């Protein structure tokens, strides 16, 4: 590995170690100096994030322009994507993004309904997944089936209309066994996060550098 490449890998590891350790230590140090340094780091995080948005926009534009210019299969969709990007940017810069602006009109009448429609598709997919997936192939699957039916009915007014036991049972399932299972998974995920974070701070885990 060349010296330049070696340095290119070593510097991010050192930076990661220093800042990782600082953010860990400052949690325990209430002194004004620690607080000031901490607030500065938070400001830097916001600034860096804004520049990453530029990376995304440029990458998106580059790829779609390439596909349109080569008239690759489906290039019309790429052109629509580029037009959408340009229109929203121009509208936002030209007339602003406040009340009664074209930008807000486009957001309220084009983007929001399109996105809500995609979200609404979940209802159909849930129904088809439930129809396919909830088969009582074993006693555990049968138990899951019964619990699913109780919770589905208990979480709507229809459940209490049929019997008050249904919403009571549904609430008990959510507050006790379901909650306990989630808590167990959260604890595992939390420990996994601690372990991975420690590996990253110490430079053992280097995926964020693009591999080994």
């Amino acid at each position, binding site marked *: 590995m060349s010296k330049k490449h070696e340095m290119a890998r070593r510097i991010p590891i050192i930076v990661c170690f220093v800042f990782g350790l600082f953010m860990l230590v400052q949690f325990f140090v209430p002194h004004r100096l620690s607080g000031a340094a901490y607030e500065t780091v938070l400001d830097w995080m916001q600034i860096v994030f804004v520049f*990453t948005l530029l990376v995304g926009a440029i990458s998106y534009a580059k790829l779609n322009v390439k596909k349109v210019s080569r008239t690759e299969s489906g290039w019309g969709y790429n052109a629509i994507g580029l037009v959408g990007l340009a229109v929203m940017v121009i509208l936002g810069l030209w007339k602003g993004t406040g009340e009664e602006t074209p930008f807000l009109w486009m957001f309220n009448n084009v983007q929001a309904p399109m996105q809500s429609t995609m979200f609404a598709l979940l209802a159909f997919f849930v129904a088809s997944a439930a129809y396919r997936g909830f088969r009582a192939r074993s006693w555990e699957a049968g138990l899951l089936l019964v619990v699913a039916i109780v919770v589905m009915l208990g979480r709507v007014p229809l459940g209490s209309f049929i019997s008050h036991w249904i919403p009571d049972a549904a609430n008990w399932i959510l507050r006790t066994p379901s909650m306990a299972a989630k808590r167990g998974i959260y604890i*595992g995920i939390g420990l996994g996060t601690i372990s991975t974070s420690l590996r990253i701070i110490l430079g053992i885990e280097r995926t964020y550098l693009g591999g080994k």
Partner: protein
Amino acid sequence: MKNLQPFAGTYMLRPKLATFCLVFFLLTSTVSAAGLPVKLNAVDTPNDKGESITLTIEGLPQEASEVEYELLRSAVEDNSFQVVEGWSVKDTVFVDDNVENGVEYLYVLKGTEDQDVQFSAVVGPVISRGQWFNTERTNVLLGVAICFLFILGFVLYARRGKKFYVRPIAGLQAVDNAIGRATEMGKPILYSSGLGKMDRVATMASMNILASVAEKTAEYNTPLIFPNYDPVVMATAQEVVFEAYSKAGHPEAFNPDNIFFVTQSQFGYAAAVNGIMTRQLPATNLFFGTFEAEALILAETGNSVGALQIAGTDSTIQLSFFIVACDYTLIGEELFVASGYLTKDPQILGSIKGQDFLKALVVLLILIGGIAGILGWNWFVKLFSIG
């Protein structure tokens, strides 16, 4: 909210200050000889960045009275008492955060009834300072130290050559078969790391799996398509895949256009990935990372095009959807184990072992906590509160 523990008694006055206070009282014409029957204490507020003094006042009447009380403060250098804003007679514990660090302050309570004015004993001087260690977080420090010990300990143990066993994880074992399937069918593999940014641990775990997958797709010359939600993840993924292709000896086969940014809108991303699935008809879908509501949409569409699907996420809710709609699912921390599992890196396997021991410790603490709750040992619960 600042922790207002009971404090020690009044500070001892220095001779010069004692003289000042005596003169102050003698010069006040309407002072009653008895003084206010209240006990005033002032200390530097602990565990803070400074600019704060905590006062406790005992002996104030609880019911309504005709006496009007005021809390007065003076910097020793200024020699003039001013009313402290924000204090009311109901406040038996009060935090005065209008002070400067390093300045000596005196406090006194003044009671006025008609023309009669009384004062409590002057307390001080007290100096506000920032602390270098928050003692209320000692338990957190201890917890962090224990985590460090376990994980680092096993990492060092692994460095000495100790081999650790990790149980077979069906989802990860199936990745090889899934890649082989795509190669045989001559169709691409679709990879998605979901909505997470690079600071999410699930996304890092996904990149580890991606490296392993990319190496195999390079060997078999199977197209790998990776639409991205986040531009930084995209840049990282391009690096990871290029390194993997180089490692497999096929850097020329790497196509950066196959790893592209789509949008940072959740359902815009879902729509884009769905479109790719219905047009390109991948044989295998790999979903590893942070997923939210779009998880089922992606998995169902993948199912409808006949793809073999393997998924892993840190989201407990989306796990349920993936379990129903995918062929294999990594549950919870199985995703985080992936890097060690696939690379067999001893240090990473060591840290996974340390994690397991920490989990055993957590289980033990939960059991003790349950018993403590039944027996009413509140002190045990307080051990885990964060200041």
